[in-house]
Every structure is written in C-alpha cells, then in structure tokens.
C-alpha cells in the first residue's frame, strides 16, 4: 500500500502556532524567575496563560476547519533544531486535525483545572510554584502534540515527564510523595528509552524523523524493521500511558495534588501514548503482528486496571486504576486500526472530560473531609455536597457507559470494533472489552455509592462537611456538561474531522454478533455490574479492610505486579550494585592497595640492610669485589667457556 503524506504550510492565523507553546512557557518562566514577588498574582497569570492559549487554539481550530479536507493541516518550521551530518531536525510545528483536538482538550480541560486549582491550592505556600510547573506542563504537552517530527515529540515527551515528576513530588517533604515521583520518573525512563531507540531506528533506516517523510517511507521497509520500530514506540507509549507492563507508577502518582492527578495523570499526559500510536498510524497499520501486540496490551491492561480498581479503598487510587483501564480501551482501539483509531480518540477526549470531572470531584470531597481519601470513611455525602454529588454522578454515569452520556458513545463502539476482528480473536478481545465494561460499572458504582450514599462512616473530627466554593464547583459543572454531551456530539463529527489523518475509513467488517445484540449486551453487562455493586454497598461497608479471599488480596496488592517488579528487577539490581561495590572495594582497591603495601613492606625490610656499622659495609664491599674479581678470573681463564 503506497501512501504519501504531505502537510500544507501554515498561513494566516495558523502561522502563529508557536504562540500556543510560547505563552504558557513564558508564563512559567515569569513565575519561576520572579519568585516570591509573584506570589500574590502568580496563580491568575497561570490561569490567564492557559485560558488565552485555549482561545487562540479555538480560533486556529476554526480556521483549520475552514480549509479543504486535503489541505487541512498547517506546518511551520521555526528554525534548524539539529543539523549534524546526515541528521537534520527542524524545530517544526504541525497543526492538523489530530493535533487540533488535542490542543483543545489540553487547553480547555487545562483551563478549568487551573481555575479549580486557584482555590484548591489556596492554603499552600507553594501555589505560585505549582502554577509555574502547571504552565510548564501545558507548554511541554502542547509541544508534544504540535511537533512535526519525532524529535520534537520526544522533546515534549521529556518535558511532560519532568513536569509530571515535579508535580507528583510537589509535596516533597512527604517521603511517600518523593518516592512516588522517583518511581514515576524511573518507570517512564524505561519507556522513554524504547521511544528514543525507536527514533534512532527511524533515522537509521529512513534517514529522517519528519512525520510526513517517515509515514511515506515506512511502506518501503521490511516487515521485521517495522515490527521492531513499532514495538519500541509501543514501549514508550506504554511507559507514558501506564500500560502493562509499565503501569505501576500511575497509581502512585496520586501522591501529587489532586488537580495534578486530574490534568496530568488522567486527562492529558497519560494519553500521550495513545497520541503517539494514533500519530504513527502509518507504522502500526503496516504490520499486522504489531497491531495484535497493541490490542493485547490494551485488553490485558483494561482487565488488570478493572480488577485492581475494584479492590482499592483510596478514592484517588480507584480513579487512577480506572484511568489505567480506560487507556487500555484506547490502546485496544488504536490497535484495532482502521476506523477504530477515531473511536480511540473519541474515547480519549470523552475520558478527558469525565475523568477530570471525577478527579476534581474527588478533590472537592477531600477538601470537605479534611483530606480523607479512604472511601470506607465517607458515605452519605450527597446531602452535604450537592454540586459535587451531581457532577460526580454525571462522571460516574458517563464512565460506565449509560446512554446517552458520553461514555456510551465512546466505549461501546470500541467494544463492537473488538468483535469485528477475524476468527477466535474477535471473541477473545471482544469478551475482554465486554467484561471490562461490567467490571468498570462495578467498581465505579462501588466508589460512588460508598462516597455519596449509605450510612455515614466519617472520622470523629468531621461534623458537617462543607461544599466547595464556586471557583471549584463551576469547573466541575462545565466538565459535567462535557461528560454528558461530548460523546454524542463527537461520535459522528470526530471521525469525519480526523479523516485527513487516519485516511478513508474502509468498509466495516461485520462483527461476529449482530450490532444491536452487542449494544444490548454491553448495556446489560454494565447494568449488572452496577446493580451488583449497588446491592452490595448500599448499606455501607466496614470501616477497615476485612480479611478477604485470594483474588481480593491479590488485587489489593496490585495483582503482585509490584512484588514481581521488586523481585525481578529491584532486588537483582540491588544485589548487582552490592556485588560491584564489593568488587570495587575488595578487588580493585585491594589490588592497588596490596601492591602499595607490598612495595612499602618489602622496602621496609630492605632498609634494615643499612645498619650504620661501618664494618658491615666494608664486608659487603669486600664480598662484591671478590665476586667481581672471581668473575673476571673465571672469564679470563675460560672456566665458563
């Protein structure tokens, strides 16, 4: 399949794409450089920077919409970024339909979360620094989605990794937060190494990292090369998106402030992996095995996330595992290829709304409950936090896929698409997706019911939980509106909009079961899961975790994935360093020090020859002379001949 990709040059308003990155970056720089002087107004500058970027992005989006489908892209090369020998990388930006929707998601949801954070972080001394990092994140994330080559993407990729690290360990005086930041950084490095090697491979085989040239050239590569390249990119994507086998950092990342969890670890940064695969669709479509790997990772992760999420008691960790699981759905979508690319992007956008909504809702609950995070100690909050309750309900109904909320329009088509594969794989992946839907309904309902309904199980110090101020609830309301309406609006418009990126949709394969049957099934499974959770947790639950069976214990311990990592990677690493330290101390230092000691010791012995007695010197001189004369005589008289 010969495929050529070309991008049009940026014109008009679109020639200002660079501003999208520059505005939040400048704001971050101002906030960091001015230091305490900016404490009074710094947070408003941060909000303003992101909001103005949103407005600018929206205008550009509309201008892009006005262009013909074939020319619906805007590429802009700012300067030579790297020019060494054969390697030539532009500092180039690309605003096309795919980047466009990401820009709107990042800046739109980002603005709301920034606004929310103004009040959430009010009593924190580091609020200005928080907004500086937050703006830095937005700038890096925009660079990630706006780059026109893989090196720019990598630049942004590392930038968001840095911002994520800084924000996870924002409360760095807490050891758990510092450790979580380190864990996230290290696990991301594993993925980033894969991405970097993938980009090296791209340059080695194709001689370029520009998107258009890579996508045009990839069809000429051998299947094996494409497979390796794709697996490496997938490793990078899995690291950033918390997918199996690199999922362990994401739930720990909830140690950061809640707005961080909402923006970075739910709505935007963790979806960068999905963006990478969707952007590289030419590479992933070119190899069937590669697609199967991506689908398998997605299916495995979505089940893993569901199972663990169902056993957790920390409100933010349940949401984090649910994020892992929902991104699993997106990976499933991008792995299926064809029309499912657009479905994955729709789910990504819808997820951005409802997950940000629920994270901020969780933050609002924590705000009113003295930073309690254990859902076993909530209950009955619907009366006290009307707005939080209502908006969280919208997020809950959306994520479990109740029609007509957004989750239904985004998740159900992915389940149907999973059933559209050939042969037994359709049953395997389809039923995984369907089972995941049921489990999602179960654990989200558990979370919702335990938090907002049932008897009060509060700790003694709480008498009357208060609703959060409007500056926090208004973003919740807007996001709730998004959770309700976005899915329906996007389900038809987004596939058409993204057509220039993913190509013409091929004729749909028929699912192995009838379409209406699958839809009914998925709704039934969802209702079953939700109903089960409702029945189990309607009357509350114990205030402390109770001893449980094998499966629940395993799920509470993250299905032993952390234990596996510790046993297989961490401990051998520690032993290796210990062995190396031992070798260094005893082996290398031992050899050097031993040599020095041997020289010192033997010279100490030799020194004793200098007795100070003249007569012993005379004896040795005499002996020497006798020997020399003897040798002369021996040669002279031919004794040695």
């Amino acid at each position: 399949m010969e495929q050529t990709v070309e991008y049009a040059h940026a014109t008009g308003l679109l020639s200002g794409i660079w501003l999208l990155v520059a505005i939040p970056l400048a704001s971050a720089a101002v906030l960091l450089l001015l230091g305490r002087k900016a404490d009074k107004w710094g947070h408003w500058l941060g909000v303003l920077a992101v909001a103005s970027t949103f407005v600018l992005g929206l205008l550009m989006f509309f201008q892009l919409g006005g262009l013909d489908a074939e020319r619906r892209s805007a590429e802009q090369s700012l300067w030579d970024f790297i020019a060494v020998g054969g390697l030539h990388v532009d500092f180039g930006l690309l605003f096309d339909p795919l980047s466009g929707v990401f820009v709107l998601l990042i800046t739109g949801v980002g603005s709301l979360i920034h606004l929310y954070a103004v009040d959430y972080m009010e009593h924190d001394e580091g609020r200005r620094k928080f907004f500086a990092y937050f703006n830095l994140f937005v700038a890096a994330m925009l660079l990630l989605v706006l780059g026109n080559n893989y090196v720019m993407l990598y630049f942004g990729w590392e930038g968001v990794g840095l911002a994520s690290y800084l924000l996870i360990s924002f409360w760095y005086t807490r050891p758990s937060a510092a450790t979580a930041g380190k864990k996230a950084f290290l696990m991301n490095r594993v993925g980033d190494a894969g991405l970097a090697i993938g980009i090296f491979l791209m340059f080695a085989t194709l001689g370029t990292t520009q998107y258009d040239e890579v996508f045009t050239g990839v069809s000429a590569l051998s299947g094996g090369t494409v497979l390796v390249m794709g697996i490496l990119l997938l490793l990078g994507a899995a690291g950033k998106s918390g997918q199996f086998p690199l999922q362990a950092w994401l739930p720990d990342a909830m140690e950061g402030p809640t707005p961080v969890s909402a923006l970075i670890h739910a709505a935007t940064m963790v979806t960068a992996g999905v963006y990478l695969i969707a952007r590289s669709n030419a590479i992933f479509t070119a190899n069937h095995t590669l697609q199967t790997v991506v689908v398998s990772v997605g299916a495995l992760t979505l089940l893993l996330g569901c199972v663990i999420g169902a056993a957790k008691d920390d409100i933010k960790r349940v949401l984090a595992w649910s994020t892992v699981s929902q991104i699993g759905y997106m990976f499933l979508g991008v792995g299926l290829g064809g029309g499912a690319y657009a479905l994955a992007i729709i789910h990504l956008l819808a997820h951005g709304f409802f997950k940000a909504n629920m994270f901020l809702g969780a933050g609002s609950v924590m705000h009113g409950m003295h930073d309690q995070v254990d859902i076993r100690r909530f209950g009955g909050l619907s009366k006290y936090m009307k707005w939080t309750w209502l908006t969280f309900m919208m997020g809950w109904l959306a994520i479990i896929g109740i029609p007509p909320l957004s989750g239904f329009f985004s998740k159900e088509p992915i389940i149907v698409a999973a059933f559209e594969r050939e042969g037994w794989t359709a049953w395997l992946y389809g039923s995984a997706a369907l089972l995941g839907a049921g489990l999602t309904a179960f654990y989200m309902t558990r979370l919702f019911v335990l938090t907002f309904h049932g008897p009060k199980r509060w700790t003694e110090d709480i008498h009357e939980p208060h609703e959060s101020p409007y500056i926090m609830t208004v973003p919740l309301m807007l996001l709730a509106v998004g959770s309700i309406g976005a899915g329906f609006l996007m389900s038809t418009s987004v596939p058409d909009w993204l057509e220039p990126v993913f190509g013409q949709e091929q004729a749909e394969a028929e699912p192995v079961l009838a379409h209406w049957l699958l839809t009914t099934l998925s709704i039934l499974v969802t209702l079953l899961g939700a109903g089960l959770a409702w029945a189990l947790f309607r009357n509350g639950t114990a205030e402390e975790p109770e001893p449980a069976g094998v499966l629940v214990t395993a799920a509470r311990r993250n299905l032993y994935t952390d234990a596996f990592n510790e046993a297989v990677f961490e401990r051998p690493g520690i032993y290796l360093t210990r062995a190396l330290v031992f070798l260094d101390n005893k082996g290398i230092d031992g050899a050097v020090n031993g040599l020095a000691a041997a020289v010192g010791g033997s010279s100490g012995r030799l020194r004793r020859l200098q007795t100070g007695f003249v007569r012993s010197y005379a004896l040795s001189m005499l002996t020497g002379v006798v020997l020399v004369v003897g040798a002369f005589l021996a040669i002279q008289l031919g004794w040695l001949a």
Partner: protein
Amino acid sequence: MTPDYYLVLAAILFTIGAAGVLVRRNAIVLFMCIELMLNAANLALVTFSRINGTLDGQIISFFVMVVAAAEVVIGLAIIMSIFRTRRSASVDDANLLKY
C-alpha cells in the same frame, strides 16, 4: 729469586689488612689495617712493574702513597673530632647514619 713470593706476600698482607678492618673496632687500628692493604697493593704494583719491566706500576704506587697520605690527614682529623664529642674511638659507636 722469583717475584711470585712478593705477590704472595702482598696477598697475605692484604688479607691481614682486610680481616683487620672487618674484625677490629678501634678506628685507629682500622686505619692502620687500611694502610696495610694500600701498601699490599703498592707491593703488588711494584712487583708487576718488575715482572713486566716497565715503570707504570712504580709510578702508580707513588700516586697511591700520596692519596694515602691525604687520606690519613682527613681520616685522623675525623677520628679526632669524633673522639672529642663521644670520648670513644670505636667505629661501632658511630652508627647514627642508618635506616
């Protein structure tokens, strides 16, 4: 009369001198033993001169005597100053220059 006896005598004198240097402690006796060795060497030189019929050995023996005289002057002066500071002429007592 063969010159070999002179050489044997020179060897005996040298051996006595060397043995004296090694076994005696008194600096003066040591000095005399050194003189004995030098003169044994002189005797050998003169004998060789006689055997070969040349004057080389005899001339060198004069040099040896001059050097020996100079050595005696310096050596006795050193021994005197050591004796003054330590009240002893034993070479084993002058053993500070060591390890």
